[in-house]
């Protein structure tokens, strides 16, 4: 039986969120928590593969207790089971510590039901790193296939998978052995409006909730802030884009104005070294 695990995260909606102008950090109270949009595509792809090949879809996430809501969203999309690992000792984790903790959760899930395929979203919209997926693959010592925008087929007897990886000028077709890890682009699928029976299932669903103590062979030093070598030295909000400038007058005058504006931007015409 094909067992697919999708890794997801609950994130603040960065389209709405406001920055604290004093500390330059995100004011999380100003934005609702949502399922990371890329992860919805990861779950949807897992569900589609289950529909094609049979099997089971589990989702796993690390986060505070309200992250249960994000898991329920995945049940709406069609996932079968959800696992939340939550513990104060996980707090403050960077991508290194996060991938360690999530790997431990996947190992635990694997003990009961071996995992054939892991699917992650391309990245989270609050961190934008895209590192956790490959980090999990490295720790589990399985191939990471990033930038996937199509899963062509899975061969369960040969234990192989064929995917398209997005490139700048097209795509490449890659075959990998199973188990492996995919991180998918948004273009991999469209997440449809969830059918009503899924909504009912999600409304009633209670995810598995694990603390550090429920996981096996955990090195506490590799968790949370302690296990996070990343140092944020400075955070700043990007400068607000400036509005355009309107040129007025008849076409002749406008062209003249435009020329003088362009000529003022001297750096456009200076050749740089190596260019």
């Amino acid at each position, binding site marked *: 039986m094909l067992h697919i695990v999708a890794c997801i995260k609950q994130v603040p909606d960065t389209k709405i969120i406001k920055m604290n102008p004093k500390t330059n950090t995100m004011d999380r109270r100003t934005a609702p928590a949502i399922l990371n949009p890329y992860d919805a595509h990861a779950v949807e792809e897992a569900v589609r593969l289950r529909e094609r090949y049979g099997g089971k879809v589990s989702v796993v996430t690390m986060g505070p207790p309200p992250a249960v809501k994000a898991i329920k969203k995945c049940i709406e999309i069609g996932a079968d089971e959800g696992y939340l690992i939550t513990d104060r000792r996980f707090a403050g984790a960077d991508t290194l510590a996060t991938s360690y903790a999530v790997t431990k959760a996947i190992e635990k899930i694997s003990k009961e039901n071996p995992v054939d395929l892991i699917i992650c979203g391309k990245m989270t919209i609050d961190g934008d790193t895209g590192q956790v997926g490959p980090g999990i693959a490295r720790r589990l010592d399985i191939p990471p296939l990033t930038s996937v925008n199509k899963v062509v087929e899975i061969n369960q007897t040969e234990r192989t998978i064929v995917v398209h990886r997005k490139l700048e000028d097209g795509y490449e077709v890659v075959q990998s052995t199973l188990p492996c890890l995919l991180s998918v682009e948004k273009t991999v699928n469209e997440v*449809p*409006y*969830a*059918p*009503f*029976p899924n*909504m*009912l299932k999600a*409304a*009633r669903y209670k995810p598995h909730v694990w603390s550090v103590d429920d996981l096996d062979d955990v090195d506490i030093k590799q968790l949370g802030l302690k296990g996070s070598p990343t140092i944020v030295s400075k955070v700043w909000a990007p400068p607000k884009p400036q509005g355009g400038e309107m040129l007025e007058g008849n076409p002749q005058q406008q062209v003249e104005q435009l020329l003088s504006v362009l000529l003022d931007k001297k750096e456009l015409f200076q050749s740089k070294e190596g260019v």
Partner: protein
Amino acid sequence: MSEKFDCIVVGAGPAGISCAYELAKGGANVLLLERGEYPGSKNVMGGVLYRKMMEDIIPEFYKEAPLERPVVEQRFMMMDKESAVTFGYKGMEWSKEPYNNFTVLRAKFDQWFADKAVEQGAVLVNETVVLECIVENGKVVGVRTDRPNGDVYADVVVLADGVNSLLAQSLGFHKEYKPDEVALATMEVLKLDKKIIEDRFNLEENQGCTIELFGDATKGILGTGFLYTNKDSLSIGVGTLLSGLIKHKIKPYELLEYVKNHPMIRPYIQGSEPQEYLAHLIPEGGFKSMGKIVGDGVIVIGDASQLVNAIHREGSNLAMTSGRMAAETILLAKEAGDFSESMLDLYRTRLMSGFVGQDMQKYKDATHHFDKFPHYFDEYIPMLNKAASQMFTVDGSSKWDKQKKIWKDIGSGKDKMKLARDMYRAWKVIK
């Protein structure tokens, strides 16, 4: 076949949540459907929650519910363009348990209340729109949602889908409401420092004030404005009959801007920052606009059944009580295994003989009367202001002279008769 519930409640507002809560508590298998992202996300109310009717459902809810401030003072402002006659009551008995009423922000409160219903065992599904009732042999047997495989069945469907209740309308229970049967309310939540609020409104911590605005707040159109204190924000709004807005060609947001800039109001809200903007219809047709509220396998509650007492700005409490009574009836019907109209009609009789029905009947002519005679708002309130100004301005003339002048200002003998007649009429419709 899709799953079948004992009851489906459409709409997670105060009526729907109350109903689902009581049903689940009574052991029924109940599905609560909400179109918004979460309960409260689409719900609007000026912000006064009445303690008694809420306590009928969850005793001592104020110990844990997300409330803003217990109301210790209620003020009423009769406004003219640059003046106001104000009266009110403030009492410390309202500042302690069990309190009288509270200001609330619906987005927070409804979520909490819905969670309580879920704790009792109700199944809550959000982001799902009910398109129509499924009717078989003249009996409502379920609802059709906008989702794939979206049909779901139940012994009883409770329509708590709010003011327009397209579902009750499609069952033929009521006609589309006319502009003089609904009010349009617009409001803003204005962020303001807690300390500033307490200073400006003369409050201590965990005390709140409500101010109802009459007269010039609505530019003389039938309706009221309000200014309520939350923890660290103010709710300000204005609601008028839709017909009045149409007649005076005023856009609702213009009216709200006007109130916000009124010299009697501006100092209260100065320096605040708009946080939310909301607008909603309020059913104000009263008793005479109420349609059918019970059918085979279906009950209508809350705003969907026009249960609003416009004169006393009460609505959520009527909604909650109707929800609770619907649930009690459905539990009895479940026991009897009978979901026919004649069985469910017990809800209507209980509702109409209780305070909800009594108040609806008491004020059955009120909205229509004040709508028909707009001079209460555009003539008499300014007259009252002028009289107060006249009386309290110290200018050397005797008080007798002042009274004579006020009396003369009312107009001719005919005008005085008209005033007396109007006062009597107003008394009659609300007595």
